[in-house]
């Protein structure tokens, strides 16, 4: 088996997930990880699917093209990268919220990148009126990084940006 990555984005309507996964199942695919979300009116899905070794990316495309056509989706298909992410230290979750203004995601992602921390999951949205921006980031710190040092840098940045920020670390103990 080999893994193939697929992304599809388009105007939201019922049946997209069912049509894509049905087509993949029919060709012998087995879903690994999937993320899908409705962002405003756009539905976006990313799938990593294992397929038999003799199934090429082109044949996956052949199977999904009619679905993309039917639902008006932009489609991208490529080999999935199984390599690690480089950062192999502790995991952490960073939560940020504050009055909406441009540059919040950029400021926090830049800080993490400067610290060689690797973002493994991120989502953000504008909620409420007046608009509040909420941002959640799961990241892996580089080996040997002191979480307290990161916490201080984050809170300094939060203060400078005028938002609230908290850092929670992964559980170390096993129950």
């Amino acid at each position: 088996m080999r893994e193939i990555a697929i992304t599809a984005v388009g105007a939201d309507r019922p049946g997209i997930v069912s049509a894509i996964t049905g087509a993949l199942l029919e060709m012998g695919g087995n879903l690994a990880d999937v993320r899908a979300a409705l962002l405003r009116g756009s539905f976006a899905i990313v799938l990593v699917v294992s397929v038999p070794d003799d199934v090429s990316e082109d044949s996956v495309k052949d199977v999904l093209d009619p679905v993309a056509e039917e639902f008006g989706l932009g489609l991208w298909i490529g080999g999935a990268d199984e390599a690690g992410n480089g950062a192999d230290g502790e995991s952490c979750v960073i939560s940020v919220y504050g009055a909406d203004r441009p540059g919040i995601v950029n400021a926090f992602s830049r800080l993490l990148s400067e610290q060689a921390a690797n973002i493994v999951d991120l989502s953000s949205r504008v909620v409420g009126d007046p608009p509040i921006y909420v941002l959640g980031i799961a990241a892996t710190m580089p080996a040997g990084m002191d979480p307290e040092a990161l916490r201080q840098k984050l809170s300094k940045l939060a203060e400078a940006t005028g938002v609230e920020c908290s850092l929670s670390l992964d559980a170390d103990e096993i129950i």
Partner: protein
Amino acid sequence: MVRDVVRYPDRRLKTPAASIGTPGPADLRLAEDLRDTAQSYPRTVGIAAPQIGAMWRMAYVDCGQHKKVADPHPPFWLIDPEVTSADGQEVGREGCLSLPEITANVRRATEITVDYTDLQGERKQITTAGFEARVILHEIDHLDGVLILDRVSSLLLDVFPRKRR
């Protein structure tokens, strides 16, 4: 004796365990196995009998030397535990020996009182708070066939892959 740890999706982890009543020789052997098995895994502060495939209501808790617990009780066994009072609520991250690849945010009471039988067969009571309370509640969940994945408010937002170490 160190026993094999049962991992989900083994159905025993989703099955309620049976009451022990007055512990006999087999229960004392089980108690030793729980301690030995917990001690054989690093950073492990508790284990419940179903996690080694023994479907009896017994758990072992040892929060000694744990940085989150300032004043832990010495290691102890809980037989037929019952929570008699629970106060406060806090979300905290938990990892489980039977779900080694993930951690999850679980809401638990912060202060609890638990009645239980000790290894001598005497009914006792323990009152504790914070992380030690969390550990006891996690183990009692195991005796009821409840896992941290049953406790999260969102499988999407509250479950995290654990780094392989």
